[in-house]
C-alpha cells in the first residue's frame, strides 16, 4: 500500500487529495490535511474520486478514420494531415481547442507548438466559457490577469458577498470554510446575490434575488451610494487609482438612487440599502463572483462594476478584502499562465504587450529552429467555430473537452465539426458526443495517471501525481503533442522526457527578461523562483502561490498590498460602466429567461462523475427548475416531463416545481449529453452571443418556452451490466440512462401508447419475462427477467414517483443467485420491513414458525396457549402436530410464566 498526494481534478478550489494505492488500484481518497486549499476537507465529488476509475469505458487505442492503428501511424497521420493543410491553405487554417482539465505542462507544450511553431494564433480553451470575463475585468482594472485574494481572505473577511455563485454546490469546500469561519466569528456576514435561492443561502444573512443580468446596476448603485454617503476611501483612490470620476459619473447616471436600482434589479429597496450599508461600512469585504457574473454579454463590465466598488472603498490588498473571481475548472488559471487563451501569447504576455513577440520568439528558438509567432490574437472559442463553419479554419485539435456539448448553439457547432476537414480529438473516455466527429482519435491519460501541475483560484500551484499506469495505449497529452511536434519537424524544441522539464521551461519563461522598465511594468506572473527544481524537487513540490521569485521564494499570499498595480501607470483603473441587459431577448414566443449551471454531484459532461453511481443519486435525471406560477401557466407538473424550446433547439427533462426560482425564469443543468439522455443539452437553448471584450458566451440568459411533454406512459427499466447489445427503447420520446453499480437504469417515456408490454419486452430484451404484475386499468406493470438465478432486468411502467428505493434492486443485480424470498419481493423492489415470521406453520391464520417459537419461549408451552395467543391451530387443526413438535423443541428455552404472587419463591 502506498499513499500519494495529488490534487482533485474537479472545480477551481483545487483541493489536495491523499490517495491510497493498493495492488495497482487506487482504493481510497481523503482530503490532504496539509493542503492550503482544503486542509483535509473534500466534497462529495472529490471523495468519490476512487469510484470513478477503472479501465471500462476508457479510450485505449489510437484511431485514424475509425480504424484502430498504432501510435506511430496515428502520430504520423496527425502530422502529415496538419502539414498538408498548412502547406495548401496556410498556417492560420490550423487551430486547437484546449481545456481547463489539462495540466499546465500539457497546456504549455500545446501553446508552444501551435503559436510558436505552427504559427497559428487560433488556440483557445474552454476556460473561455467560464473565466474569460473575469480575466478581462482584472486586466482592465489591474493590468494583469491576477486574482488579488486567497482563501484565507474568506475566513478573515467581515462581509462576504456571493454574486452569481452557488458556492455551496460548485465550490463546496470553500463554502464549508466560510461556514466554519462564520461559526467562529458571529460578526461575519454573508450576502447572497443570485436570481435563484440556492443552497448557498443556508448561512446567508441577506439574500438579494436579483433579476438576471442586473448586477452592474447593483454595483453601480453601490458606488453611487458610497459616494453619496461619503463611504469612499479617498486616500486610496487618490494614491492608487485612476478613472474614478468617470466611473462615478456613469454610476450616478445609471443607478443614482436606491429606488432606481431596486426597480432595475427587481428587489426590495430596504434589503438593497441594507446590503449597501453593510458593504460600505466594512473594510474587510470579499466579493466572490463566478459564472453568474461572467457568462453574460456584458460580463466584463459586471466584473469591473464589482472591482470599482472595492477600489473605491480601498477594500483590496488587505487580509479579508478584495474582488475574488472563483474559477470553474481545476486548471483554468494554469492554462492562462501559459497563454492558453487565443488573445494571449505566453506566460501572461499578450500580443500587444510591448516586446512580447520578440521575447517569446527568442526564448523558444533553438539552435536550428526559429519560432514563427503569429502577429495578432486568434479566434476566441465561439468565433473559432464560426471560422470553422466558414471553412476558414480547416484543422482542429480538441484536447480534454467537448465543444459539441458545452458551446452555445451546439447544433451549429456540430454542423461546423461535421464539415471541418480534419478533427483530431485527444480524449480519455471511449464514448462522448464529440468522438463521432473525429478523424483522428488519440487516447489520453487521465487523473491518477498523469503528472503535472495545476493552479487553483487562489494562484496556488499544486502537483497532480501519476499513481496508476494509463489503460491500454493511452498516453500523456504532453507526450502526444511532443511526438506530433517531432513528426512536424520541431523535435529540437520539444525534446522533453518528463513534465518537470516542461515546468522548468515554463518557469524560466515567466521570469525571462521580467523586470520593470519605463512604461512597461514587470509581469506579475513570475515563477522564476521554481526554476531548477530538477525531477526530485518537482516531484516534492508543495503547494505554492505565485508569484514565486527570488524576493518571494515562498510564494505570495496576496497581491497589490502595496497599492502598486501592473498597469502602465501603476494605478488600478476604475471603469465607467453602462449596464446592459442580456442580448438574448425574451419574446411572446420565448417568454421565459433560461439560467444554466452546475449541480452538486456532477462534473461537466459526466464522463467521470457518472462512473460513481452514488453521485447519480442527488439528481438522477436531467431536470428544469420552474416557478409554480410558470408551471401552472404552462400546464406542467412537479416531477412531470416537459420541453423547453428555444429558437434553435429543445430540451426535454423532468420538472422540479420550485419556489426557489423567480417567476418567469427557468434553471437547467449543463451536464447531460447525448450519451446520457435523449435531448437535454442546455447549450442548444443558448444563442452564440458573447461579451465583445472577453468572448465569453451569454450562457445564463437564454430565452425559452415551456410546454409539457405529453406522455402516454412512463417506465423505469433496469438492465444488468452487459445484458444487452442494443437499446431499442431509445426510440422513445424521452430516455435517460443512469449508471448504477452492476446495472444501468433507463428512465423512459413516450407519447405513443404501448398496447402489449409483454410482447414489447420480448423484442427489447434477450431474457424473457419471468415475473410480472399488472394493473391494466391504471396502466401499471412491473416485470423482471431472471436467468439462471440472476436478475437480468427489471421494469416498472408507471409514474417514477412510485419507484421503490433502488438500492435494494441494485444489490440484487449484483448477486449471483437470487433467493426465493428475494424473488418474491422483486417486483416490490424492497424487503417489506415486516418481521420475518419464518416458514408458515398455520396456514389458516398464516402464523410462521419464528412467531410460534418466540411465543413458546415466552411461556406458551401448550397448543391451547399458542392458539389463544396466535390463533394458530384453532381452525383446521392441521398444524397441531407441528405445533406439538415445536413445543417439544422449544420447551427447554421456554421461560416460566410469571410466578403467582402467593407462591413462595
Amino acid at each position, binding site marked *: 500500500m502506498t499513499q500519494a498526494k495529488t490534487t482533485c481534478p474537479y472545480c477551481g478550489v483545487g483541493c489536495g487529495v491523499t490517495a491510497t494505492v493498493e495492488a495497482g488500484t487506487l482504493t481510497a481518497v481523503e482530503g490532504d490535511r496539509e493542503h492550503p486549499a482544503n486542509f483535509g476537507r473534500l466534497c462529495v465529488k472529490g471523495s468519490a474520486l476512487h469510484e470513478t476509475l477503472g479501465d471500462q469505458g476508457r479510450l485505449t487505442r489510437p484511431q485514424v478514420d475509425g480504424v484502430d492503428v498504432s501510435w506511430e501511424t496515428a502520430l504520423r497521420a496527425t502530422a502529415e494531415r496538419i502539414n498538408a493543410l498548412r502547406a495548401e491553405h496556410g498556417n492560420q487554417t490550423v487551430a486547437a481547442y484546449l481545456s481547463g482539465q489539462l495540466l499546465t505542462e500539457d497546456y504549455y507544450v500545446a501553446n508552444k507548438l501551435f503559436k510558436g511553431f505552427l504559427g497559428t494564433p487560433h488556440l483557445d480553451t474552454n476556460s473561455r466559457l467560464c473565466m474569460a470575463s473575469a480575466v478581462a475585468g482584472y486586466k482592465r482594472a489591474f493590468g494583469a490577469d491576477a486574482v488579488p485574494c486567497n482563501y484565507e481572505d474568506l475566513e478573515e473577511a467581515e462581509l462576504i458577498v456571493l454574486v452569481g455563485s452557488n458556492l455551496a454546490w460548485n465550490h463546496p469546500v470553500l463554502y464549508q470554510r466560510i461556514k466554519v469561519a462564520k461559526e467562529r466569528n458571529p460578526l461575519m456576514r454573508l450576502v447572497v446575490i443570485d436570481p435563484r435561492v440556492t443552497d448557498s443561502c443556508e448561512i446567508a444573512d441577506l439574500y438579494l434575488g436579483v433579476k438576471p443580468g442586473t448586477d452592474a446596476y447593483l454595483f453601480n448603485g453601490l458606488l453611487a451610494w458610497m459616494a453619496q454617503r461619503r463611504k469612499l476611501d479617498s486616500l486610496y483612490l487618490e494614491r492608487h487609482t485612476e478613472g474614478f470620476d468617470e466611473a462615478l459619473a456613469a454610476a450616478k447616471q445609471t443607478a443614482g438612487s436606491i429606488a432606481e436600482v431596486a426597480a432595475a434589479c427587481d428587489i426590495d429597496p430596504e434589503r438593497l440599502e441594507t446590503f449597501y450599508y453593510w458593504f460600505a461600512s466594512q473594510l474587510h469585504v470579499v466579493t466572490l463572483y463566478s459564472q453568474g457574473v461572467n457568462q453574460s454579454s456584458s460580463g466584463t463590465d459586471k466584473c469591473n462594476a464589482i472591482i470599482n466598488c472595492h477600489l473605491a472603498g480601498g477594500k483590496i490588498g488587505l487580509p479579508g478584502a478584495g474582488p475574488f473571481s472563483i474559477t470553474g475548472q481545476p486548471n483554468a488559471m494554469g492554462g492562462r499562465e501559459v497563454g492558453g487563451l487565443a488573445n494571449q501569447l505566453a506566460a501572461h504576455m499578450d500580443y500587444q504587450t510591448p516586446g512580447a513577440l520578440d521575447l517569446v520568439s527568442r526564448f523558444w528558438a533553438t539552435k536550428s529552429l526559429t519560432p514563427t509567432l503569429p502577429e495578432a490574437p486568434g479566434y476566441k472559442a465561439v468565433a473559432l467555430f464560426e471560422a470553422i463553419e466558414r471553412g476558414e479554419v480547416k484543422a482542429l485539435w480538441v484536447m480534454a473537452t467537448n465543444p459539441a456539448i458545452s458551446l452555445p448553439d451546439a447544433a451549429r457547432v456540430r454542423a461546423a465539426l461535421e464539415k471541418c476537414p480534419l478533427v483530431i480529438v485527444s480524449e480519455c473516455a471511449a464514448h462522448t458526443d464529440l468522438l463521432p466527429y473525429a478523424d483522428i482519435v488519440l487516447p489520453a491519460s487521465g487523473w491518477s495517471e498523469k503528472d503535472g501541475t495545476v493552479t487553483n483560484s487562489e494562484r496556488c500551484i499544486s502537483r497532480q501525481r501519476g499513481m496508476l499506469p494509463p489503460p491500454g495505449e493511452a498516453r500523456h497529452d504532453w507526450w502526444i503533442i511532443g511526438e506530433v511536434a517531432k513528426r512536424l519537424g520541431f523535435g529540437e524544441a520539444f525534446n522533453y522526457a518528463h513534465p518537470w522539464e516542461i515546468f522548468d521551461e515554463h518557469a524560466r519563461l515567466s521570469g525571462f527578461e521580467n523586470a520593470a522598465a519605463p512604461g512597461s511594468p514587470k509581469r506579475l506572473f513570475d515563477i522564476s523562483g521554481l526554476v531548477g527544481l530538477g525531477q526530485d524537487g518537482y516531484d516534492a513540490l508543495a503547494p505554492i502561490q505565485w508569484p514565486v521569485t527570488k524576493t518571494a521564494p515562498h510564494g505570495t499570499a496576496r497581491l497589490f498590498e502595496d497599492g502598486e498595480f501592473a498597469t502602465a501607470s501603476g494605478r488600478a483603473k476604475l471603469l465607467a460602466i453602462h449596464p446592459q441587459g442580456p442580448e438574448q431577448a425574451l419574446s411572446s414566443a420565448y417568454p421565459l429567461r433560461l439560467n444554466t449551471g452546475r449541480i452538486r454531484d456532477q462534473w461537466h459532461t459526466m464522463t467521470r462523475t457518472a462512473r460513481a453511481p452514488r453521485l447519480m443519486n442527488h439528481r438522477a435525471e436531467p431536470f428544469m427548475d420552474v416557478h409554480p406560477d410558470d408551471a401552472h401557466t404552462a400546464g406542467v407538473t412537479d416531477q412531470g416531463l416537459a420541453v423547453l424550446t428555444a429558437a434553435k433547439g429543445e430540451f426535454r427533462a423532468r420538472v422540479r416545481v420550485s419556489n426557489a426560482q423567480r417567476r418567469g425564469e427557468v434553471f437547467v443543468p449543463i451536464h447531460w449529453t447525448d450519451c446520457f439522455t435523449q435531448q437535454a443539452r442546455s447549450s442548444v437553448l443558448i444563442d452564440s452571443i458573447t461579451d465583445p471584450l472577453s468572448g465569453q458566451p451569454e450562457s445564463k440568459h437564454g430565452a425559452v418556452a415551456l410546454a409539457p411533454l405529453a406522455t402516454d406512459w412512463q417506465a423505469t427499466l433496469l438492465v444488468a451490466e452487459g445484458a444487452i447489445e442494443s437499446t431499442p427503447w431509445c426510440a422513445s420520446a424521452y430516455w435517460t440512462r443512469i449508471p448504477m453499480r452492476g446495472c444501468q437504469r433507463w428512465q423512459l417515456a413516450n407519447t405513443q401508447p404501448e398496447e402489449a408490454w409483454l410482447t414489447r419486452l420480448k423484442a427489447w430484451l434477450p431474457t424473457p419475462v419471468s415475473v410480472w404484475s399488472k394493473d391494466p386499468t391504471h396502466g401499471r406493470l412491473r416485470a423482471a427477467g431472471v436467468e439462471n438465478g440472476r436478475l437480468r432486468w427489471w421494469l416498472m411502467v408507471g409514474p417514477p414517483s412510485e419507484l421503490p428505493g433502488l438500492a435494494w434492486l441494485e444489490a440484487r443485480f449484483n448477486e449471483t443467485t437470487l433467493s426465493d424470498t428475494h424473488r418474491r419481493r422483486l417486483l416490490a423492489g424492497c424487503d417489506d420491513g415486516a418481521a420475518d415470521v419464518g416458514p408458515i406453520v398455520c396456514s389458516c391464520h398464516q402464523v410462521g414458525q419464528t412467531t410460534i417459537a418466540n411465543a413458546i419461549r415466552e411461556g406458551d408451552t401448550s397448543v391451547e396457549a399458542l392458539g389463544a395467543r396466535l390463533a394458530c391451530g384453532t381452525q383446521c387443526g392441521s398444524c*397441531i402436530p407441528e405445533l406439538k413438535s415445536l413445543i417439544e423443541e422449544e420447551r427447554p428455552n421456554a421461560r416460566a410464566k410469571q410466578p403467582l404472587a402467593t407462591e413462595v419463591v
Partner: protein
Amino acid sequence: METTSRCSANSHLVIIGNGMASHRLIEALVKHPTRPQRITVIGAESAPAYNRILLSPLLAGEMQPDALTLRDANWYADQDVALILGEKVETLDRKSQTVTTDSGRSLVYDHLIIATGSRPALPDVPGIELEGVHGFRDLQDADALEAIAKRGDNAVVIGGGLLGLEAAEGLRKRGDDIKVNVLQRSERLMNRQLDTTAAHLLKDTLTQRGLQIITGAQLARLESDTQGRVAAVHLADGRQLNASSVIVAAGITPNAELGRQAGLTTERAIVVDEFLTTSDPAISALGECCQFNGTTYGLVEPIWRQVEVLAATLCGTSTQGYTDAPSATKLKISGVALYAFGPTEASAGHEVLSYHDPEQGDYRRLLLRDGQIEGAMLYGDTSQGPWYFEQALAGADLNAYRQALLFGAADVEVLQASMADQHNDTPDLSTSEAA
C-alpha cells in the same frame, strides 16, 4: 336474542355422530359451567373422533396415524361423557324421544343432536357399485387406499376438487409403481375455488409430479372384470382408462336419512334455524348433515361457528344465532398453498390486478370494484391472504395504494405512512430569506 336453554342441566343430551363437529361441540360443552350433566355420544366408526383433514397426509405417509387423534377414549370418560363407538343409530322415534342403534341399544334423550356428517356423492353411472370403488372419507378408506397404493397398478380418481387431488397425490406419493389418473368434469381443476390461471398452474405442477389429469372428462360407465371388480373406466367421448381401483371424490351427500325417516323437515339436508334447531325443538342438527337458509356445508370454518352457537344455546348463554358469513378458502393441496375468496372470475366492473411467477409457482389476482377488494386468488405465496380478506370485509377503499396492493400489507402500510407524512408536511422548498 335467544337466551333460553334448550337443555336443562340435568337432562340427557344425546349426540349422534362422533366426527370433528361433534367433537368440537363436546370440547366446548365440557368447558362450560352450565353444561348438560349427561352427555352420550354415539359414533359409527370404531375410533373416537379424529382430524379428518389429515387423512391426506396420512395416506401420503407424511403423518403417523396417532397424529390424527383429537382425544382418546379416556378423555371422554374423564369429562363424564359417555362414548359409544362402532354402533350406528338406525331409528329415531321422536314421540318417545328414543334412538336405537344397529346393536339394539336404545337411548332416551331429552335433547338430541344429529351430527352425522356426509358421505361421498356417487356419480349416477353404471358400475359405480362395483368392488374396488372407494370413497375417501374415513380411516378405513385411508387404509384401503394405502393398500391400493402399495399394490400399484392403475387407479382412477373421479373428481378434481380438493379431496380428489389430495387422494390422487396421496396415492402417487405412497405408491412405488402406481399410475394415477384424475378425472375432472370441469375444464379446470378445483373449478369452484380457482380461476383459469391458477388451475393451469396447479395442473402443471401436479402433472410434473406424475399425475395424469384429464379435464372435461364425462364419466360414462365403469367396467368390471370377471370377478366383479372394477377394471376400466369409460368416458363419454369413448376414451377408456384401465382402472384396478376407482376413488370417488366428486362432492358429498349429507347424511340426512335419519332425520328424513323421523319426519324432520329436510331438503338436501336437515333444515335448521339460526340456533341449529330442526323442525322438532328437541332436536338439533350440526355440520355437514344440516342445511341453513338453503346452504349445506363442507368446510370447517362455518361449522366451527355453528358449534359456538349450538354450545351456547345448549348451555343457556346468550348467542346471536348462526348466520352465514363470507369466508375465504384456505387450502394446501399437496404442498401447494391456496387462499381464495370472492368470485373466481372477473365480471363487468371488476378491475383485475395480477401477479405472475409461473416458474416459481406464484400467482395472485385481486378483483377490485370502486377501489374495494371483492375477490382474491392467491396461489403459492398465500401469506397476504388474510389481510386481503380483512380489507374486503372492512370494505376498505384501497385505490390510493393499488401500486403496492399486490405486494401486501406491509407495503401498503409503508405507503400509507408516507402519504400521511406528505399530507402533514408543508412543502419545504427552502425559500426562506434570512435577514
